[in-house]
């Protein structure tokens, strides 16, 4: 299913043409997570490799629906998202990577609980837009993308765009009692 606008076309991870390497995930308080990422050249070989690495690392991480470059220690505006099969997802665009993405429209604000691989022991209530329009470019081709989505995919996109701006969900939690210790499963 695809939203309106200039969607992802027939872009797939395979189009990157390189094998992704699983990278270690950085956790807070690592400084790279709090720095705004640099804009990237989407066609540069290191961007293509970064895109592939993000997808590879996302895929081996259980429950991971998105991963941004700062989370693997790279201060760049690149992230991968895949909410396929998530129970809260409505519109789903499958696996994709965006470079230099920004939020251009945000409506239908709604609070929801979110976690983050870089803040592994905490979750928080964060108000996010339930419908967004995001613009960015695809790694490899540099093709511009204008993606319209909603529900959980919209939340994931906002979370990842925040990472690329050096923000964590902790910077947006709703109040003093909106941060929760994740249950510890032994």
């Amino acid at each position, binding site marked *: 299913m695809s939203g309106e606008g200039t969607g992802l076309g027939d872009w797939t991870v395979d189009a990157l043409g390189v094998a992704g390497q699983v990278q270690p995930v950085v*956790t*807070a*308080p690592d400084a790279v997570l*709090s720095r705004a990422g640099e804009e990237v050249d989407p066609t540069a070989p290191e961007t293509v490799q970064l895109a592939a690495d993000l997808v590879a690392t996302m895929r081996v991480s259980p429950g991971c629906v998105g991963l941004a470059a700062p989370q693997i220690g790279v201060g760049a505006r690149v992230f991968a998202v895949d909410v396929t099969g998530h129970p809260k997802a409505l519109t789903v665009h499958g696996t994709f990577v965006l470079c230099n993405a920004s939020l251009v429209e945000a409506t239908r604000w709604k609070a929801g609980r979110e976690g983050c691989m870089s*803040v592994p*022991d*905490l979750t928080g209530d964060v*108000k996010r837009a339930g419908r967004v329009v995001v613009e960015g470019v695809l790694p490899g081709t540099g093709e511009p993308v204008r993606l319209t989505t909603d529900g959980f995919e919209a939340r994931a996109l906002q979370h990842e765009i925040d990472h690329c701006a050096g*923000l*964590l969900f*902790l*910077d*947006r*939690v*709703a*109040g*003093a*009692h*909106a*941060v929760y*210790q994740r249950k510890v499963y032994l």
Partner: protein
Amino acid sequence: MNELAITVIGRDRPGIVADVAEVLAGLGANLTDSTMTRLRGHFAMTLVCSGPAAPQVEAALEPLTADGQLLATVRIVRGDGAALSGGEPYVMSVHGADRLGIVAAVTRVLAEAGGNITDLTTRLSGSLYVLVAEVELAPEVVERVTARLAEVGRGLDVEVTLRRSESDVL
């Protein structure tokens, strides 16, 4: 009618709230505002109730604290603590590597601007320290406070954000 401030803290176990609430109910103490939460394996109750005299409550709580696992205090407080400040509601988030003095430094910035903290929690999660505070601030000082918090945050190597609290009325 007495207004009492009661604190109970001790090693967490099932039944602390039920035990304390039962004692208070038995004395006809009306439990009004309270927070009860687990802090690093200790269970902490802070509550205000109205009704009986403090010594009565102290005596009634004594069996609960006899084994040394719970600590209880009871104090008379004065009147209805009417809200002090005007100001608008803001939320401050602070996170970074744990170190001494983070809470002191950032809350001093708020205090110097006349900010009144209405709620605050902190969590230490591994080496990550997280503070979230709700604070009432005069809108005209927010820009100055934000700049000062950024400065203090840089000095402590922590990230600080201050933003308007969302308060939708449905």
